[in-house]
């Protein structure tokens, strides 16, 4: 099997984005809850956030003229890969406690691994990232591992 991943790409494993600091507002939770069709009162009232609420902190807020043609911001954590067709893979989260209105959170996203595999219709590159969410006081909130697949 040919080696697709250069040493330069592999050297990126382990690097992280600057930690994001956010204050969770009740209104942010309510918007998320209504738009996803939640039924639980604690979510609709914005007391507590639904399990995937933190996904809303993953996309960088950039000026419109800095977005790509498809609308999304460049993902600076992931190096340029030799395979260009990117697909969202999976998301797995371990929860320590729910996110609540008023929380002050620190969110760090790290490049956990990049590896290649031979798929049925050609080579695939798997990119794993890990998001760690904790309170400013250092209390663990959740850890999410996501995968992206390039082919």
């Amino acid at each position, binding site marked *: 099997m040919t080696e697709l991943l250069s040493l330069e790409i592999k050297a990126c494993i382990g690097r992280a984005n600057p930690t994001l600091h956010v204050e969770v507002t009740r209104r942010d939770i309510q918007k998320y809850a*209504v738009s996803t069709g939640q039924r639980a009162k604690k979510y609709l009232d914005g007391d507590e956030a639904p399990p995937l609420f933190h996904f809303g902190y993953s996309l960088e807020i950039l000026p419109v003229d800095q977005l790509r043609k498809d609308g999304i911001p460049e993902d600076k954590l992931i190096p340029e890969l030799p395979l260009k067709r990117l697909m*969202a893979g*999976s998301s797995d989260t*371990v929860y320590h406690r729910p996110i609540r209105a008023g929380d002050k959170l620190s969110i760090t996203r790290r490049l956990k691994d990049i590896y290649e595999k031979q798929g049925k219709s050609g080579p695939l590159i798997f990119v794993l990232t890990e998001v760690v969410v904790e309170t400013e006081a250092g209390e663990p909130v959740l850890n999410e591992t996501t995968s992206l697949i390039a082919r």
Partner: protein
Amino acid sequence: MLNYESINVGDLLPSREHTANIVQLFMYNAAIWNPHRIHFDHAYATEEEGYQAIVLDGPLQGDWIGQVVTDWIGEDASLVSFGYANRRVAFLGETMSAGGVVEEKDDDKKEIKVSLYLKNAEGEVTIPGHAVVRF
């Protein structure tokens, strides 16, 4: 009230249907700050990227299967872990059904593992998932 003892492997979790309209999808992408054009720009999604219609966000579908669990446990248990995978694309206007089944019971930890799915009208799973809850 849901209690650990009364739950059996093979039990079905209450299922629910979701049909996102363009307003809901707009609100969702605004709420999560997602400017990806395939989720709101029909001409771009179909002409530039070759999709048949506006594409539903994977994490929105992931949330729908998460709700199968959170609506099932209410305040009677807590969520330990939850995961989903993007298996197939789904489009605006499709009616998706979310459900799940109890897979395992761990009596020592009082934890229950469930598998979850989101299916389209053809019965194809677009988003499979799994969760562990603790009583």
